[in-house]
């Protein structure tokens, strides 16, 4: 059975892109979230194998969402999606419990490598 993914990003464009990359690699996209709050709720419902998490989102940012998710499931596997120059925020997210990160613009190979590291 293919592994399940929840994609959290406020931009449809980014969700579509990440979704395409992961679907092509055999993952199953089980849900999407546009805000940090939604991300936490959907994680609770879906218990996906992997969460991709944008850092900057309305209604609770990605980092706070990671903290909430980790509180409920310390084994959660979260991959942060960041833009260039956000290293301080990414480090904060990792301290909050995220496992790895990818940087926009996404290169499919780098995204998949990071996913493998998170799940591996």
């Amino acid at each position: 059975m293919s592994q399940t993914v929840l994609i959290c990003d406020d931009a449809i464009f980014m969700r579509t892109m990440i979704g395409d990359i992961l679907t092509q690699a055999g993952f199953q996209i089980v849900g999407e979230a546009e805000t940090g709050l939604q991300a936490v709720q959907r994680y609770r419902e879906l218990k996906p194998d992997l969460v991709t998490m944008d850092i900057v989102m309305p209604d609770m940012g990605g980092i706070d969402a990671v903290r909430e998710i980790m509180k409920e499931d310390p084994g959660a596997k979260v991959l942060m999606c960041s833009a260039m120059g956000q290293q301080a925020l990414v480090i904060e997210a990792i301290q909050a419990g995220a496992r790895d990160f990818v940087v926009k613009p996404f290169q499919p190979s780098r995204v998949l490598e990071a996913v493998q590291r998170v799940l591996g």
Partner: protein
Amino acid sequence: MERSRYGDLFLAESREHISAMNHLLLALEADPAAREPVEGLFRAVHTIKGMSATMGYRAVADLSHEMEELLEELRQGVRSASSEVVEALFAATDGLEVAVEHAVVGRESAHDATPLIERLRGLARPGDRDGGPGALRVEVELDAGCALPGVRAFLLLRRARELGEVADVQPAEPELQAGAFDGRFAFSLRCDRPAAELEPQLRAVGEIAALRLRAAAAVPALTVELAPSAEPAPTHPAGPGAAGRARQMRVDPARLDAMMNQAGELVILRDRLRRIVAEARSAELSEVVDQTSRLIDELQNEIMRVRLVPVAQVFDRFPRMVRDAAQSLGKQVDFEVEGSALEFDRSLLDEMSDPIVHLLRNSIDHGVEPPGERLRAGKPETATVQLVAARERSRAVIRVSDDGRGIPRERVVSRAVAQGLVSPAAAAALSDDEIYRLLLQPGFSTAEQVTDVSGRGVGLDVVATRVRSVGGTLEITSEPGRGTSFTLRLPLTLAIVQALIVGVGRERYAVPIAHVAESAEVEAAALREVGGQRVAMLREALVPVLPLGEALAAAAGPPARLVPLVVLELGEQQVALQVDALLGQQEIVVKSFDATSDTLRAFSGATILPDGRPALILDVGAVPAMLEGTLQAVRS
């Protein structure tokens, strides 16, 4: 990474660096205490490492990393440049060259660098091979493509802290996290697991180009290496480092060749146009054509200048080759290079590179005596081999000479007789020049045993053929006990040559003007037969005459009262070609073909004349053989 686009850049730059490294190693070998070669080597290896990691060439990156480690120890003065170390670096440089060439054609796996890496490691970690429990120094180089190196470093340190105790992080962690480093950092890790187990755990963090663990005690301070250096990290070929070099650009040589060819075609059309204009008698047309002609000339000159490259580009690889050849033969050789700064046509240099290698090996193998023999002959123990580039009027000259034993006349003659190349009777009458020419016969070799360096069954004939095929000549001079020199006289460019067009019957041939001493018309009565050889009296000297029509089995025209002759200069010798008509001088664009094809041995290429008809270009180097009747120049 777009390999197709950067692959050529990577290859060109790596080759330059590897060539430089060979030079620096020679300098280091000569003076093991010198600092500059070590610095230069370190920079070259570091650059190759950065580029190869960017390209994803793991084998190249790993090997260069290992070399860098060793060089770093030399830089720090922790280790001295012993002959063992220098030899290992020579071997690793060769390995690097092979790995680079394999990597760019996608055959990276064809070269296993592991033995070389092991050899370097054996040197780099004296007496401390197993690591063992205790403090380890971990050195990391992140992927050049890593987007947030600070975060990746943070992740790696976090992983390390799960495994053991981390200390002495360089650069300091705040700097690392801010991304203020060049992708390389190091830290000490104290834990009781073996290094072999730690390495994969640390590597699993990802985006790591190189990671190395070693016992902390064996490591010198790394501050020098790790301080943010003035030299930018070579991450992208067109990165900030390229700004200072923006006034130069790299061009695919094939494009220059294509431009040269097109310019050549323009030259031919120009000549055609001129003929038409001469008939049209229009002042206006004539003026336009004159201007166009001038522009075409300038264009052609410009393109030719672009194609010029310093001779050093080819010569630079020879010192290393000479050293290796001399060493493997147990000879002592001082290698002198002159004229490296001259600029020759790139394709000419490319063509001549192999022949020069052959001549140098030949000199070291056959010319230079072993040290003992030299001492007994009252000569200095160390021989001198010279490679000289020079300009001689409109020719490029390349000369390889040695102060060795000279060419042994008797051995050459007896060998030639034994091989049936010459009859014993004829052998006795041979001049020095003729004897030396025997060396150029296919398959001729006087070496009694095949050595690793030369005499692999391919002889000087290969050199002679190649030189001929570009319209050049090979001259040999030798003095017993004093030395031998081989002189190549070559056209300055291979693409366009000045030629004399001659008519034989209905055919026309082009004779490269570089070899023409003069043309003349003599009374038919002035030609004589002496001992079966036709000769002409020219300026009070007898010159052998080659009737070109007979030699080429072309239908010759009817005998005329005045016979046109083209006098060729072939080294010391002159030969007159007897033709039916002298049709003038012009520039021709050489379209070369495979000169080894038997039926066309008499020709070095073909060209298209202004009237659109093709003409074959006479291979002047083949004339002596045609004169002796040994070359049956029959056209298919």
